[in-house]
């Protein structure tokens, strides 16, 4: 199997996520693009877990940090951890977005006044 296929897919997904984060103005769509980026990272972790062997790294001393972790399937476990992190991120992010919507009736990121400091803004931005 060619190892390059999942890596290229992951790179394209990450680029799409970057494009979406920069392009979108709606906060929820920005969160969706962030999910795409996290999935690309997960895909790289799982692909590296499946494809990288000790023999792949030629000339790297065995005690180097770049060497493969001695435990097998460590990439899959890191992918699980990243999934948990993404769940926590989307929970807090959506709470912030919904609270901002409750205060301002808008989810447009360009119109968030970061330098305004009345009572409600302190609750949103801090």
């Amino acid at each position: 199997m060619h190892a390059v296929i999942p890596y290229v897919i992951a790179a394209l997904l990450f680029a799409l996520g970057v494009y979406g984060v920069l392009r979108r103005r709606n906060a929820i769509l920005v969160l969706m693009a962030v999910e795409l980026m996290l999935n690309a990272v997960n895909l790289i972790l799982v692909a590296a877990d499946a494809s990288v062997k000790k023999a792949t790294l030629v000339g790297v001393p065995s005690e180097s940090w770049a060497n493969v972790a001695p435990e097998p399937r460590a990439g899959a476990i890191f992918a699980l951890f990243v999934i948990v992190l993404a769940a926590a991120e989307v929970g807090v992010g959506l709470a912030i977005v919904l609270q901002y919507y409750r205060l301002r009736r808008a989810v447009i990121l360009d119109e968030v006044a970061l330098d305004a400091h009345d009572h409600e803004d302190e609750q949103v931005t801090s």
Partner: protein
Amino acid sequence: MTVADALMLALGVIAVGSGALVVTSAHLVRAGLYLVISLGAVAGLYLVLGAEMVAWVQVLVYVGAVVVLLLFAVMLTRAPIGPSRDLDRPAGPAAVIGAGVGFGLTALLVDAFRWTAYDLPPPGTARRVGEQIFGAWVLPFEVLGILLLAALVGAIVLSRPDIGARPGPPAAAGAAPTPDPVDESADVVARLERIAARQAAAQARVREQAAAERAAADGQVAAAEIEPAAAPDPLKERARDIVFGAGDRRPPLGGGDGEPEQPRVIEGAGRPRPLGRAAERPALPASPSDDRDGTGNA
């Protein structure tokens, strides 16, 4: 190119294509549903790569929970059903940066893994993943548990406006003592006064009638006793209202006069029924009831 390669290419095309639709679609809800397709295709890639546990966790957590949360948020923020025109910024800088990131990462990874071939690993079962997590990765697992708890508590605190509200000017305005609508309202007081006056007038009228009949039957003494007793009644009613609270003196719904269970209506005065009794009262030896009326009035 093996079957696994072909499968991975197909799933990759699906994932990247629907990912592109996620970041370019003008419909908010459709973007969320394309995200479902993209994440499902990535779960299929995990399956092909032999990470079965990660694939099912991806389906459960991402497709089952995260996308549902995102769609909840889309609907809670009153997203329009049709296409929205103001979802995007101008595409220039974002496209340049995204294309740069894509080409850079693709070139790097292709250069690194161009000739790497690998055998399909044995499918990782949940048992092996569990042994790894609770063996070598216990500490990150616990830290992640604490982080998840903190994130959930933070989301709850963010979502509830009554937690952590500081005593600013709007909070002070909201904490101002609200007037009791029953005790403080001038409308209620005026209505109670009107009711008391009307009842006093009805009592006086009935008592005059009864006194006239009684005077016609018994003589002038009883009428002379009852007639001055009618005068202090409105004042007493008002004093009783003030002492025992205004809530008891609400106007009775059914017009009050015909209800025998009204406790404050003085017997023989407010009800029309004692009129008939008073009409036949001269035929009876009615002195105890007259005494009861007199004490009740006084």
